[in-house]
């Protein structure tokens, strides 16, 4: 009897040791997977600042941040939608709609320029979310229709795109995106704040876990009594609002409601989310990653300009290649931590 217990304690100790070793390796793999884009970003940034004098300057970096700030809001909303296993193809059009509404609103009252896009684009997202949550029509189709519809709506508002609303000079609406604090534009700070909030939502609220649960195992989320439909509706509404907000801020930045904005922007947003390590089928990912992904795309654009590849098409080629490389790296890193099963399920 005595022997048994002794031996028992020995074995359990041994098990603990292996567990610790393995989990350290798994943790580092997981870190690399979650932050693969960050590593690439830092590496690329380092190489570029060593190669090009003009890259590492404060003005260049703050400008990259400024530019990323608008689109990153779209990526933020997209991240939450993708968490649920959905997708929002409408963001590019909604972004443009938000810009037009923002400029139009601001031409009457600066506050209206902010409230109107949030309200209308939020409502637009809510409608899409409701259809996704309540009907069996896939999100892909719903938001594809949304892409068309929002663009159509924008054209109606602007007489088939003939009218460009201008934000009156001197309106405080303009300072929203043109002002800066500590050398960084307000929109950069706003993006930082919103992403911080997004991370809190993901890791520290029931709502965040619920979204991941919906994407990971929709049936289970339902059976666990989670508010599936409501959560989805909120996610799509948020995505619409954030796209509208980004549009309005762009209107403030450019002082006008440009009607041709945002074509194909959904792909940029999705790319950023993917680069950030979020699984497109939903259920896992990271809010912060999307921000990093968007920054990475901006830095690549900056690089291409500096390489003097005037054929802007190289930009697309490089973006596509980066997407494949980063996504592949993430797969391999996540395999390290996965249990040793051979066939990919």
């Amino acid at each position, binding site marked *: 009897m005595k022997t048994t217990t002794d031996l028992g304690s020995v074995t359990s100790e041994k098990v603990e040791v292996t567990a610790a070793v393995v989990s350290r390796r798994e943790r580092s793999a997981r870190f690399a997977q979650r932050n693969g884009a960050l590593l690439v970003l830092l590496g690329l940034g380092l190489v570029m600042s060593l190669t090009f004098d003009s890259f590492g300057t404060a003005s260049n970096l703050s400008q990259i941040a400024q530019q990323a700030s608008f689109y990153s809001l779209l990526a933020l909303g997209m991240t939450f939608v993708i968490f649920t296993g959905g997708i929002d193809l409408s963001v590019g059009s909604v972004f443009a709609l938000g810009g037009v509404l923002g400029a139009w609103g601001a031409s009457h009252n600066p506050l209206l320029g902010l409230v109107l896009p949030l309200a209308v684009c939020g409502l637009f997202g809510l409608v899409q979310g409701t259809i996704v949550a309540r009907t069996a029509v896939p999100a892909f*189709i719903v938001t594809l229709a949304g892409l*068309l519809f929002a663009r159509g709506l924008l054209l109606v508002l602007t007489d088939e795109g003939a009218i460009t609303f201008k934000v009156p000079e001197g309106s405080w609406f303009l300072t929203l995106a043109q002002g800066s604090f500590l050398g960084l534009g307000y929109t950069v700070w706003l993006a930082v704040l919103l992403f911080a909030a997004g991370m809190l939502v993901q890791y520290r609220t029931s709502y965040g876990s619920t979204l991941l649960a919906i994407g990971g195992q929709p049936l289970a989320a339902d059976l666990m009594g989670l508010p599936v439909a409501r959560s989805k509706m909120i996610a799509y509404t948020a995505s619409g609002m954030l796209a509208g907000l980004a549009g309005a801020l762009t209107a403030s930045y450019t002082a006008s409601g440009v009607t041709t904005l945002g074509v194909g922007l959904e792909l940029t947003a999705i790319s950023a989310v993917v680069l950030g390590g979020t699984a497109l*089928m939903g259920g896992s990912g990271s809010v912060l990653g999307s921000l990093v992904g968007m920054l990475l795309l901006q830095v690549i654009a900056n690089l291409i300009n500096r390489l003097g590849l005037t054929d802007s098409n190289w930009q697309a080629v490089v973006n596509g290649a980066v997407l494949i490389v980063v996504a592949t790296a993430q797969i391999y890193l996540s395999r390290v931590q996965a249990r040793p099963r051979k066939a*990919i399920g």
Partner: protein
Amino acid sequence: MSNQTAVAAPPGSGPAEHRRGSPISGDWVRRNGVYLALIVLVILNIVITPHFVTTSNLRLQLIQTAPTLIVALGMAMVIGTGGIDLSVGSVMALAAAVMPLYLGYGTLTGVAIAMLCGAASGFLVGTLVSRVGLQPIVATLAILVGGRGLANVIGGQIKNLNDPGLRSLGLGSFLGVPYTVLVAAVMLLVVGFLVRRTTFGRGMEAIGGNRRAATLAGLPVNRILVTTYVVSGVLAAIAGILLAARSQASDPRTLGLLMELNAIAAVVIGGTPLTGGRIRVLGTLAGALLMQLITSTLVAHNIADSIAQMTQAVVIVGAVYVQLGRKTS
């Protein structure tokens, strides 16, 4: 309290006997929603659109449906395996961009190399999806973004194609049937045959239905997936070639733009579930016709772009809703 009652159930009242009620049930409408929608749209056009029922117009509808249909057939197969192929539009552009470079060696060479381009892109995607394990939407998104860039880099500006072979392929016809339409019809038959009658077709549906089970059943899952994406790539390339031949020009900048979305819409409207496991070939034909008919109706009635886009949006969601209905649970 402890009453115990045992009652023998009436014999033969198994649930199986309560199966399927009248033929025109909600279920029937669902399964045939796309055909109904198509018929409704045709009738509507007959009533409201002048010059709709003319041979030349119907012929035009078929010609303009052909590229979408060809791409959608490949898309239906990919979706059947549980994937999605966002790369098709860019592959069309890529094929059309490469073709003129080799037309000097003869029409067939040019066409063959363009198709090879499609196959190569499909092979790349298929390998990324099956062996590397990328999600199909990610792999094909990368090609969608990068492929068009590459097409522009390779093809440069729009090029006129002064090739008699391509000219007759694009504008000629056989026994009154335009070659474009013939090619699409042949592709329809080929894909229909593949899906319905071959081990490959069964394999695709099995993978889409339950990839893990298909692997355990010893199916060559990777090979089937790679083949599927190659077929989709080749079909996209064919569509690109046909479009280029018809317009007598290769324009990598605009050719096949947004085709992925049109094709996916056609497939889903056609009743193939986006989640995979089932491929509906005839439905895809109906879906492609429907998409074309919406566009042509809007143009024929000179609807402004704004309203046209909104109408398209509503019709697409409506047509899918008819088949899928409300969320069940």
